[in-house]
């Protein structure tokens, strides 16, 4: 009896110790993907998922390209892994920390990968790197060389539900913060959410930046982090007032973009900042008709923004597996205009190459977004950004319930430490 318990006891301790260690973050090392036998090379492609469901999953879009590519390039195989946006950065980072390098990623790109010498430059792996939109060259450049290759771009606008606006008796589109606040309060009276404010970890850095821009603020001034600038503090103080008045959804600091966009598509939110990617979500929900919603320039403190946040998602080509020639074959193939246009039509996003942009210039839906792109403001692109962005995503949402000054100062502190 006592022996039995003792052995069970120690067995339990040993088991628990193993479990504890496994969870204490000792990453496993694994084999990297590499050239297979028979002269075939397998490329590992990791992409972010832009789809709203299985029907338009990104793996499907890439599957079409890969099938055509493999047919004409029998010695190269491509394995595609698609990761939802909520986990993309973290999973790619974990692969890199564990030295399980992908060959190509399409999604977020960070200059610290270039700093570590992990990436091929754009001119290494593209025959015509000059075709990438020049407006996005700077954000992908590290030490004068372009590593981040834009694959798709988008810009932000303010979407609002015209039906709810009419019900609330609002005649004009919101142009200023005061408009947003007053309109949100009226829509709240209808029992709906006035303004959808996604400050949860999924994309808090984008929503925050749109409000900072509204007051002439931003993450950086002349290349230096100024997250706790007076303009930014003022923007978050304004948001805090909206949250306290119940003009937004409850507890914005924990609400992610995707579920909130879906709620807008269901007609239960008056206003929300969105990108063209919100359009297919509205269409597939089937609740709002084309006449029930519209999008206008983002509201600023004194008037609509003349610049907006331009976001591009990048392709990055990783060196460690040594597949330079094969990556170049694949990227030249995937960057063809027809695939760029197919992507833009599927997800209502904008192209990232000059030739594809020209082909879309006459399209009435895309044209206004395209003309705005060259003037767009972008995220910082220094090597500290990856770290700073994570901190922003984790904590900036608490600025609208706690003290804006404290939270923004802590972020400023973290960003200067990281720089």
């Amino acid at each position, binding site marked *: 009896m006592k022996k039995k318990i003792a052995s069970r006891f120690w067995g339990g301790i040993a*088991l628990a110790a193993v*479990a504890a260690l496994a969870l204490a973050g000792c990453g496993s090392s694994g084999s990297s993907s590499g050239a297979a036998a028979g002269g075939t090379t397998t490329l590992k492609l990791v992409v972010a998922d832009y789809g709203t469901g299985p029907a338009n999953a990104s793996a499907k879009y890439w599957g079409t390209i890969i099938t055509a590519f493999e047919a004409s390039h029998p010695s190269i195989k491509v394995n595609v892994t698609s990761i939802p946006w909520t986990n993309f950065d973290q999973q790619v980072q974990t692969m890199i920390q564990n030295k399980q390098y992908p060959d190509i990623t399409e999604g977020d790109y960070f200059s610290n990968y270039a700093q570590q010498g992990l990436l091929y430059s754009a001119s290494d792996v593209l025959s015509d790197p000059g075709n990438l939109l020049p407006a996005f060259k700077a954000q992908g450049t590290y030490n004068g060389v372009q590593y981040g290759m834009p694959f798709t771009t988008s810009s932000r606008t303010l979407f609002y539900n015209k039906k709810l606006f009419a019900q609330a008796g609002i005649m004009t589109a919101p142009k200023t913060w005061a408009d947003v606040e007053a309109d949100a309060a009226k829509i709240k009276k209808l029992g709906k959410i006035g303004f959808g404010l996604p400050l949860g*970890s999924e994309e808090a850095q984008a929503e925050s930046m749109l409000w900072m821009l509204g007051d002439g603020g931003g993450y950086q001034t002349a290349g230096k982090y100024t997250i706790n600038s007076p303009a930014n503090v003022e923007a978050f103080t304004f948001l805090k007032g909206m949250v306290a008045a119940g003009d937004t959804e409850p507890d914005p600091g924990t609400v992610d973009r995707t579920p909130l966009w879906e709620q807008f598509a269901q007609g239960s939110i008056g206003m929300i900042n969105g990108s063209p990617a919100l359009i297919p979500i509205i269409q597939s929900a089937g609740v709002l008709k084309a006449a029930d919603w519209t999008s206008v320039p983002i509201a600023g403190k004194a008037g609509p923004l003349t610049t907006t946040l331009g976001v591009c998602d990048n392709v990055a080509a990783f060196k460690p597996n040594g597949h330079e020639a094969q990556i170049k074959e694949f990227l030249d193939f995937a960057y063809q205009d027809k695939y760029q246009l197919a992507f833009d039509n599927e997800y209502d996003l904008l192209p990232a190459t000059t030739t594809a942009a020209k082909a879309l210039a006459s399209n009435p839906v895309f044209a206004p977004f395209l003309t705005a792109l060259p003037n767009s403001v972008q995220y910082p692109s220094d090597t500290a950004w990856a770290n700073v962005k*994570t901190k922003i995503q984790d904590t900036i*949402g608490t600025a609208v319930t706690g003290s804006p000054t404290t939270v923004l100062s802590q972020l400023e502190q973290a960003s200067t430490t*990281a720089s």
Partner: protein
Amino acid sequence: MPALRRLTPLLWLGPAIALIGVVVLWPVVVMVQSSFQNIGGDGFVVGYDGTDDFRTLFDEPDFISVLERTVLWVVIVVAVTVLISLALAQLFNQTFPGRTVTRWALIIPWAASVMMTALIFRWALDPNVGVINVILHHLGVVKHLGSSQAYWLGNPTSALAWMMAVAVFVSLPFTTYAILSGLQGIPGDVYEAAAIDGATSWKGYLAVTLPLLRPAILVATLINVINVFNSFPIIWEMTRGGPGYETATSTIFMVELKQGNVGESAAMSVINFLLVIVIVVVYLGTTRWKEQVDR
């Protein structure tokens, strides 16, 4: 020959020792080593940086509150789990029709992936369509769906309470079975003797059952403490430690730190590891486990 014979036990012990060395000891060494190195978000070791990682960690504005929350989390979850399990084990130790089926049913929360359970609860708590909120709405507890009252996971206090409930739910099967096996090891004649001495059933429970259950409770508590301390999937899937880090325990905090600074994250792991050891030693000391187990 006799010298060789003396080595034969090694043949049987060798694989186990090697396994412990590779799976338990070596990671500890690497963990401690990493906590004194400068390792960025990309996993490259830049070199040793002394105690910088620990200093950065201690300077995190949320560090102290994360530790306090971890202690609260462990104490409440384990205490509630053990209390409920004691009652459940007592129930399952009785003979009643359908006992086999209910005993099987108790395993389900254990057999199901914890991550799945956490996800199910997260969706059940959705402020607009979650089944728990819909039921509470019909009962009149939640006035409006979609209101901040219905958004249990948005407020740190209610989010923690719900996550503790889920943690208790998934810890019950193991604990109940551990105590149940202890109960079955108590011979019936002890109770007869107690009854002859005039013990009521409640007195008998306090004077006979509980003391005899001590080894089982000891083991169950200890393993639960370690498990709950390191509990990751529940909080990760339900709130990711948010808003901010206000529902993060030290394990979640460690994972969040890992994205930007592996060295600092390793420092957090070392602190975690030391804390578990301290808790275990203190617990074993106060319960005088040697007497219990060797008796």
